[in-house]
């Protein structure tokens, strides 16, 4: 089976408008967390969120302005990834290049706008002459979860499989893993993978609020509100944005002398089959073990792990235990951090974003920290790279975990690429 390499990556996030600025902000422990949009804050004044640092329409051509916000984020991240990979479209082998998308909620912004328009038209006396059922004709194509996949295939003329995975917080980690398998098993030679999410709207946030998992705003400094592995954690912060990767068979990459950021060496996935939202050590450990087994790496060879680390009590403690179980004595040499402390939880985009940050750590030898971790939870006893980035590390391989509501666990492993 052919090795699969990462040949480009792109990001639009609460930390930056591209990959370099996002990684630099993460290394500087700078948080992108802050106040909610006004229409959310009107109902949920206590909620903090991680908004994209750039409004997507300001960097997109006008023809894309009608698309859902999540699709717009995806297009921006993909454009960067394709540029870094040096792919020039139209591709001669377009039918061998697929698109794999991960998204949690689909076109959440468009859904929310639909209901908002309906009830506003219905209840506003000034609009009594209007039929509230009149909606934009492209409402459905904007809401559908595969809207981003469709936009990407059309923009770049990519004619291989275009699949969308909606697996909550693991969506884009699954998309990366499944794209990797499709290439490894010869169904495709390359794939554009993107995770995207845009759900900082009133309807979605009312739902999250009701689940009682969201962080309380830090009264002194709202940007410190997400504190994974910390004794004073209070839950997670929803973010928005997208991250994209171009995956390629090593053979295709070599043929065109393309750049290689890393080899995608292992993918593991499992289901807890236990509880809707509570995590399980067995399920998480199974995913990590599969990824290690597929890569042929020993736990000692992995020196950085980007944790799922959402800053919920159950999540932080369970992940700590499952890392102990898988890595055993090798945890002594393992640095673990949760960058969600800075960029928040991008749900469908989380897996891809955190893999991209992990690959940046692999190539730079600089490990992003777990921000705001000055009061460690004694039950969480790993090396979490607390507060400050660590530089000058020799990194051979990195792991990124994504564990979803619904009990889906994904672990991805990337390593330095050494052609055979």
């Amino acid at each position: 089976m052919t090795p699969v390499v990462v040949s480009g990556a792109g990001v639009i996030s609460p930390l930056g408008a591209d990959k370099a600025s996002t990684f630099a902000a993460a290394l500087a422990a700078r948080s992108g967390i802050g106040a909610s949009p006004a229409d959310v804050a009107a109902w949920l004044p206590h909620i903090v969120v991680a908004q994209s640092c750039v409004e997507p329409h300001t960097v997109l051509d006008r023809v894309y302005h009608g698309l859902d916000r999540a699709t717009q984020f995806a297009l921006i991240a993909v454009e960067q990834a394709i540029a870094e990979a040096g792919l020039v479209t139209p591709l001669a082998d377009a039918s061998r290049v697929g698109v794999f998308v991960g998204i949690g909620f689909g076109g959440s912004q468009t859904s929310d706008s639909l209901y908002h328009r309906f009830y506003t038209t219905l209840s506003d006396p000034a609009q009594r002459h209007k039929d509230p059922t009149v909606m934009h004709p492209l409402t459905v194509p904007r809401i559908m979860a595969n809207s981003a996949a469709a936009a990407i295939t059309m923009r770049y003329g990519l004619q291989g499989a275009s699949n969308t995975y909606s697996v909550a917080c693991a969506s884009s980690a699954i998309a990366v893993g499944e794209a990797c398998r499709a290439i490894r098993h010869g169904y495709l030679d390359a794939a554009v993978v993107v995770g995207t999410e845009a759900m900082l709207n009133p309807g979605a946030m009312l739902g999250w609020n009701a689940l009682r998992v969201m962080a309380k705003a830090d009264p002194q400094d709202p940007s410190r509100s997400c504190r994974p592995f910390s004794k004073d954690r209070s839950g997670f912060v929803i973010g928005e944005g997208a991250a994209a990767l171009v995956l390629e068979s090593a053979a295709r990459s070599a043929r065109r002398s393309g750049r290689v950021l890393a080899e995608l060496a292992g993918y593991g996935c499992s289901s807890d089959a236990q509880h809707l939202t509570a995590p399980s050590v067995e399920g998480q450990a199974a995913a990590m073990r599969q990824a290690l087994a597929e890569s042929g790496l020993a736990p000692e060879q992995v020196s950085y792990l980007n944790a799922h680390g959402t800053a919920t009590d159950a999540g932080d403690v369970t992940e700590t235990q499952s890392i102990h179980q898988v890595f055993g004595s090798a945890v002594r040499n393992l640095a673990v951090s949760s960058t969600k402390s800075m960029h928040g939880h991008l749900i469908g985009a989380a897996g891809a974003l955190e893999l991209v940050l992990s690959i940046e750590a692999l190539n730079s030898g600089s490990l992003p920290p777990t921000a705001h971790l000055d009061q460690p939870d004694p039950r969480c006893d790993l090396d979490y790279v607390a507060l400050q980035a660590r530089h000058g590390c020799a990194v051979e391989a990195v792991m990124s975990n994504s564990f979803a509501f619904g009990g889906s666990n994904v672990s991805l492993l990337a390593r330095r690429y050494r052609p055979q």
Partner: protein
Amino acid sequence: MHRRALLPEALKSQPRDPQNGGSKTHIRYNQTHKLLQYASMLFEQIKNYLIETAGVDARKFDNPDLKVADLELDSLGLIEMLFEVEDKYGFQIPDPMVFLPMTFAEMVAAIDVMVQEHTKAQAAKH
């Protein structure tokens, strides 16, 4: 937004316009005048949308016999264009396909009739 600035306020208030009280001739004159003014506003509204948002070549509108088919809109493009009117007046145009064989001017006139009927029906309701 530019296209919202084109909304014909004149017609919106017409059904209840107290200034229309007077001689029958006067009413007819006023209404005809407003209808013409309004129809041209509708024409401009759709035309501007097509040029600015849908990317239709502005020079096409110099031709008085311009056909709807010559706009080269696909089926989604056609209903997106109609939404410009639907959004403003608050009703759904039933069958978009009836416009395909028409000229652009005929289509605007046909939509104009629908807007009039909707506006009248709404006025009767309230």
